[in-house]
């Protein structure tokens, strides 16, 4: 076995160190800057203690955006999961035009979010876009897609769902394709109908893939801000602001680097804690209930 040790670190270290070096500086920088009053007219790393954090505690916009993100991300990911699973089941086998559907259903995740959001903006344009036009043609009232809270949230979720359901679809379809046939034959022999087969066989077998897909999507959704930025700019009012977008306003648009640093740090910690808890819960419920 000697000689092996040397190789052991050769495998892991290059990747680990690269990532560590690239990530550690931003982290330290953010921690340090969050204690400074760095802003546009005072771009220096001074020290102002915890003033930024005190200010943050009273920042309703920030806390509201965190809460909104949790609901928005949770909701969208869940819908994506249900739709992605349904689609994967439908084109899994016995479907005409299988390959065409599969390719088509994959395409949205390949597209650039900011670019597609710009297209979506034209689609939801309230007077020039096709959505309201088509609603009008079938005699339905037009909707204030980007200017009233409810519809703006719906529009935002629509774009997110359009973009990322394919991701769920891909993972779940690949998962389905890797299942072995035996449990299904057994279920068929037992005379189980499609619904029972799904809940007793397919769903439990897919639990590990499901957990991975959900967690990865939740991680990605927790950063949601591109679509907000292009589509609603957080409006109307601040009713569709996510923390990512709010941070963008504070940190980049207003150049309040110090304050944004403290917001970033809090946001990051909250997300890590929340996502860790959620993923533990997911692993536990899905794997034990079905395992």
């Amino acid at each position, binding site marked *: 076995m000697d000689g092996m040790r040397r190789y052991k670190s050769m495998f892991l270290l290059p990747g680990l160190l690269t990532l560590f070096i690239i990530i550690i500086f931003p982290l330290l920088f953010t921690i340090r800057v969050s204690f400074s*009053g760095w*802003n*546009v*007219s*005072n*771009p220096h790393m001074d020290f102002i203690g915890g003033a930024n954090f005190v200010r943050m505690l009273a920042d309703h*916009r920030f806390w509201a955006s965190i809460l909104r993100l949790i609901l928005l991300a949770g909701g969208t990911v869940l819908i994506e999961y249900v739709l992605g699973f349904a689609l994967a089941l439908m084109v899994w086998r016995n479907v005409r035009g299988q390959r065409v559907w599969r390719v088509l259903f994959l395409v949205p995740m390949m597209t650039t979010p900011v670019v597609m959001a710009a297209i979506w903006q034209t689609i939801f*344009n*309230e*007077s*020039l876009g096709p959505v*309201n036009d088509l609603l009008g043609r079938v005699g339905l009232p*037009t909707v*204030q*897609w*980007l*200017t*009233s*809270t409810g519809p703006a949230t719906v529009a935002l979720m629509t774009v997110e769902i359009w973009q990322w359901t394919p991701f769920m679809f891909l993972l779940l379809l690949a998962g389905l394709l890797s299942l072995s046939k035996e449990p299904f034959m057994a279920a068929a022999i037992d005379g189980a109908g499609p619904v029972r087969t799904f809940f007793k066989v397919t769903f439990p077998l897919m639990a590990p893939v499901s957990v991975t897909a959900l967690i990865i999507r939740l991680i990605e959704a927790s950063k949601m801000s591109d679509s907000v*930025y292009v589509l*609603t*700019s*957080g*409006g*109307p*009012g*601040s*009713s569709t602001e996510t923390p990512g977008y709010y941070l963008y*306003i504070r940190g*980049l*648009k*207003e*150049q*309040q680097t110090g304050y944004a640093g403290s917001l970033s740090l809090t946001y990051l910690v909250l997300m890590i804690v929340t996502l860790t808890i959620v993923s533990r819960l997911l692993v536990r419920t899905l794997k034990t209930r079905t395992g």
Partner: protein
Amino acid sequence: MTKHRRAKLAAALAVSALAVTACSAGGGGSGASKPDKPAKFAPGSDISYTKYGSNYPSTTVKDVPGPCSYESISKKDYSGRTLRVISHAVPVMGEPTQLHAKQFAELTGAKVDVVNVPFGELYQKILTPLQAGQPAYDVMFYPSLWIGDMAPYLAPVPQKYLDTAQMKDVTKAYMQVATWNGKVVQYPVDGDRHYLKVRSDIIDSPKWQAAYKAATGKTLEVPKTWEEYQQIAQFFSGKDWSGSGKLNYGSAEVTKRDDLMFSAFISRAAAYAKNPNVKTGFFFDVDTMKPEINNPGFVRALTDFVKAKSTWPPGGANFGLGDEIFSFGGGQTLMSYSWDDAFIQAQQPDSKIRNEVEAAQLPGATQVWNRDTNQWDTPASINQVPYFTWGWTSAVAKDSKQQTMAFDFLCFFSNDANTALDLTIGRFGINPYRNAHFDAAFWEKQGWSKQTAETYVKTLSDMEKSPNRVFDLRVPGVNQYMSSLANGVADAISGQKQPQQALDDVAKEWNDITTQVGKDKVQAAYRNVVALENG
């Protein structure tokens, strides 16, 4: 062992790939200025953009002799040098930047790299490298109100350029806009203000005048006050007055929070809150730096703004400038107030409503808040306050190594021939800022009707003459102030807060911002703004 060697080779390849790209990046480099070369243009040549694209107007103008003319610039040899330029997204300001960069490169042999950035990104994209001491751009095009944040990093315009005829023709207001602490640090390339635009065909139509009279008992004419504006907009909303088979609406306004909504609100507030007898500032009391943003004048304007919702087209509560331009310029709405763009758009040769529009001063108010006496004043005539809102400007970075070339580029950009052509292309967003531009004949030559041209020119030149006017908050941290204001206004429009509450909150935030940025700094800068207001 080969296994070893191959593994190393793979690693080496990855590294060398990086190295190769590293070497190919970079570039630029200064170089001693070279002697002049022969000119490519004869003095007074015909200039036209047609060779750059089939959609440019076929208009031809004469090259006006001077240090910035095609002829003079084509004598310079900047080959082997790179000019880095940042500008707004295409087309507004971005397209002329691209076009003139291309021409400048052809004339001088320089390499001109232009990057176009959406409005919301421009501020941080320019400021981040400046603050980090990273020389990123030689020439920057940006909204002039950022001067307070930009000034420390800008190179003053050299005397030689200030002495040119084209610079001397820039109106007083726009020279003031370009000046910071007595130095001209911005190179004027555009003039901007807010004014009112209306569909003259409808306002002047007997049919609609009769209908309006029947409904309201009032005469239909171009609104003089915000109350009239609201009433007319209301009347014309939801009617198909254009006969297109689709509904039309009363008013198109810029209402998107992170777009330019703050300017729309200032337009609406100017007449209520800028009292000609109060000389100590519009946004703040300059002596105490107490925010005035929540005084009854502003609250009244915000109340109006919220009420105006019912006169907007679908989506009107999230209109960016582009939407407003499309809406008015496309014939969907009767009235609009903001920059020239919607007006010029309506006047494009292929426009359906060409010469059916007219310009006027922003509506005024019959009452104006007096904060010294804490009551509403009722002036003898309507209180009309022009708003010199920001326009595009340009500047050269202090740490640029290509300052001469940079200023040559800007003076070429704004030479008489180019400006004459640029003014007529709506999507360029370049609007009159020299005395020569306030000439109705020039516009009539572009195919404008006499009425349209005259109201346009008169509106603009009247604004220059007014002694009671509003400028943007040209102080450091302006983006924070405006972002906070826009947020408050948006909260009121979306119904999340009452106007008074919303503006009280803004005032509170403004105090915090002032403290953060430094009261003295803001106050000093604001004194200059106040001086302009009463100019």
